[in-house]
């Protein structure tokens, strides 16, 4: 099989449909590729600038291994929500209830584990089901009864917030079992010889690198197998080097402190999983289709109601996960938990390239958007900017990100 592939591969690759762009074609290709994904690359560059800015401003404190670990822990729940929110927005909807739902599930979890001594793994499963049920209920109203998602989830926002207070009787409930705390706050266990680095994290990092490289190479082979045009070898190598460098940097940074946080692993699995589903699974395509043009999707045989329903069910489940992570991190469920989380998640999605009218966006984009907000938060905390100004600046960043996108589209189009 593999010999067959290599035998065939040289032929279509350089042929390249007789591209007249010879020498400086590489740069041109890079620019073309970036232009097609302007929003995401734009945000990635912006993120890089923000990181450099704060790294300089804080004399490098921002990039201290301890702080990077902290960044992950602090933002994990928003990032989890942003993944789900991105799907909702791609489908052409909005979910305002996730902040309240986060609090509600945290409260239910606390009452189960603290007041009723339910084993934490069981309680986690029950909480996730609960979140899924809440999401499904809202999804039912939106998909099958045709009530606008803005209204349904606004109602949900009020209802779940109220239920949280009723459930907790206005009290803060805690502490959580140690096992769950470890999931939310802990790091991968220490194993093997003392190397000055966290061994398991190193191993994991290397595994990820191997996986990424293997995947890219396999993907390229498959393209050639189908006799499709592939990007030139130089560009391909450049991409791999960039990817490896990025993963390696994060790995070394985390490995030189306490290792990779457990939440990071959970997040990684979610990003890869949802990214894959949205890009490659039939259901993912259907989400893009209903958001992009609902009538056309219906006439193409997409079961739009079912897809919408599932998107909200999924959002509910992710909100439950975020609620558990949040409650366990602060070791208490409080009635005011998760306040404005929905807005942070929505902001992350839009900064990360979602469109108000639906049909556009990627899971990775939501993460980039969330990390931009996270780094801004963290960096401004480090340099001592007050929370009042932090909000002003975050608001302006959101406006600028979407404004840039609109401006860019206008320039390219018409």
């Amino acid at each position, binding site marked *: 099989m593999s010999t067959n592939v290599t035998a065939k591969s040289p032929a279509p690759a350089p042929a390249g449909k007789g591209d007249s762009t010879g020498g400086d074609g590489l740069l041109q290709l890079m620019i073309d590729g970036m232009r097609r994904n302007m929003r995401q690359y734009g945000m990635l560059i912006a993120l890089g600038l923000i990181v450099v800015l704060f790294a300089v401003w804080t004399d490098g404190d921002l990039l201290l291994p301890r702080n990077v670990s902290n960044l992950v822990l602090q933002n994990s729940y928003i990032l989890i929500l942003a993944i789900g929110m991105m799907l909702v927005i791609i489908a052409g909807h909005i979910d305002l209830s996730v902040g309240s739902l986060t609090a509600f599930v945290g409260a239910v979890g606390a009452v189960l584990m603290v007041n009723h001594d339910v084993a934490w793994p069981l309680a986690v499963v029950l909480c996730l089901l609960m979140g899924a049920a809440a999401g499904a209920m809202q999804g039912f109203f939106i998909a099958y009864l045709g009530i606008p998602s803005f209204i349904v989830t606004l109602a949900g926002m009020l209802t779940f917030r109220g239920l949280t207070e009723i459930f907790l009787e206005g009290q803060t409930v805690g502490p959580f079992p140690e096992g769950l705390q470890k999931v939310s706050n802990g790091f991968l266990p220490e194993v093997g010889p003392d190397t000055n680095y966290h061994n398991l994290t190193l191993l994991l990092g290397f595994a990820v690198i191997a996986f990424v490289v293997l995947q890219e190479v396999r993907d390229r082979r498959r393209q050639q197998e189908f006799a499709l045009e592939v990007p030139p070898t130089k560009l391909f190598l450049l991409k791999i080097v960039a990817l490896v460098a990025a993963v390696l940097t994060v790995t070394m940074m985390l490995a030189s402190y306490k290792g990779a946080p457990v939440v990071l692993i959970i997040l990684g699995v979610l990003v890869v999983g949802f990214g894959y589903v949205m890009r490659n699974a039939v259901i993912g395509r259907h989400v893009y289709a209903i958001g992009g043009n609902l009538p056309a999707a219906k006439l*193409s045989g997409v079961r739009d109601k079912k897809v919408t329903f599932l998107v909200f069910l999924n959002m509910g489940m992710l909100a439950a996960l975020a609620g558990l992570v949040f409650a366990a991190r602060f070791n208490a469920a409080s009635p005011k938990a998760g306040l404005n989380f929905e807005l942070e998640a929505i902001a992350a999605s839009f900064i990360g390239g979602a469109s108000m009218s639906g*049909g556009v966006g990627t899971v990775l984009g939501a993460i980039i958007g969330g990390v931009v907000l996270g780094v801004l938060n963290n960096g401004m905390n480090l340099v001592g900017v007050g929370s009042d100004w932090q909000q002003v600046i975050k608001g302006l960043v959101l406006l600028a990100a979407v404004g840039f996108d609109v401006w860019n589209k206008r320039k390219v189009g018409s």
Partner: protein
Amino acid sequence: MAGPVLEMRSIVKTFPGVKALSDVSLSVRPGEVHAICGENGAGKSTLMKVLSGVHPHGTYDGDILFEGESCQFKDIRASEQHGIVIIHQELALVPYLSIAENIFLGNERATRGLISWTETLKHATELLRRVGLSDHPDTRVADIGVGKQQLVEIAKALSKKVKLLILDEPTAALNDEDSGKLLDLIRGLKDQGITSIIISHKLNEIEAVADSVTILRDGRSIETLDVKASGTTEDRIISGMVGRDLDHRFPERTPHDAEVGAAPALEIRNWTVHHPIDQQRKVVDDVSIQVRRGEIVGIAGLMGAGRTELAMSVFGRTYGRYASGTVLKDGTEIRTKTVPEAVKHGIAYVTEDRKHYGLNLIDTINRNISLSALGKVAKRGVVDEHEERQVAERFRKSMNIKAPTVFEPVGKLSGGNQQKVVLSKWIFAGPDVLILDEPTRGIDVGAKFEIYTVIDKLAAEGKAVVFISSELPELLGMCDRIYTMAAGRLTGEVPRAEATQEVLMRQMTKDKR
């Protein structure tokens, strides 16, 4: 005044990466109806946008002279002040405002910011009379048909003291009757001294209404012909547009002899559908039709005849409220209550409104083509992107879709290429029966021929094709049999040999009640 009222000299307009107009000159005599025609992408709409200030002065090269003065419009308002008004293909009316409010939108009859309703009403009534519209000016625009909306647009233009009226494909969405009225109105305006420029794909209209015609091809003005001159025939104009003699506007077809005995691929029996809101009204009334494999069967009818409604209600009941009737595939009754069911039984419906019902304009060519049959490029719910891309590349070649890659957003393609994408999408679904609803609407002559060829090939491969069209010549050129509908009912069935435009038109206007 002997000189031209409008002169555009050597207009060049470049967009990033494309030269939309490379050298266009246009000269319009006062009081004439001047047609502009050319294939899609020839630069007609761009030229009119340059003229009306949509593309402001400075973004193009060349000179515009209107009434002898050099013009440098910076926006549409500036051109309107000179009496140049453009009516776009997609009407720009606010559906929930009244006719009168729409006519004076942005130009309100007001004193010190307060609208004078009596004056508004008086002027609106006057303008409506001039365009021959009898509806009350307080009627909501959403409640009148497209034909009348077009007239409202013209009334709006008249309210701005129009001297030069530009109409971009004014009859594209109209039925023959409304088109006729509109053309009469344009002639009437001419008598009132208003000069018109009309962009049209319909050559018979140009012959009927225009005095001269300028032909554009690939961003250049090729020639201006006197329509009334004896040499100017439809074929003459077409050859100018495509740059070659088009002897055959339709592919050679050997008429298909229906195999006697075999059950029809699709049979619809006694199909009745009610209007989705007005449930008393039968939109499709007791219609029975059938189509065999290898056959192309036309459905002719004026707007409101119920053709699209028939097709959509059969295809997953996507229109109206089903009342009664059965669908048979190869002689056995099938359920087509949902779109997936209809698709599973090998039925495909290619919509007449590709932008709203056919394509996800912001998504790429490959993803649009695969959408209705993702299962074919997916294993266990996971799409194989490379196979999908390969499929799309295949269609790009075989259908001659003009795009640099299959990752191009469909919204950036021209109408003809978009239509090829919709067709590819449904051909990829692998149906036995294709219902094509106005498959050549709003696309240029060259692309039309390509689409006819595809349809012909599909029939030759043994697919059953239902061809809904408002253009009688294409039905006559393509179909083995033609059904006619009027007011929701079937009014006739004509075999190819007996079909002429006159016969069909008679049956399409027949009132069976």
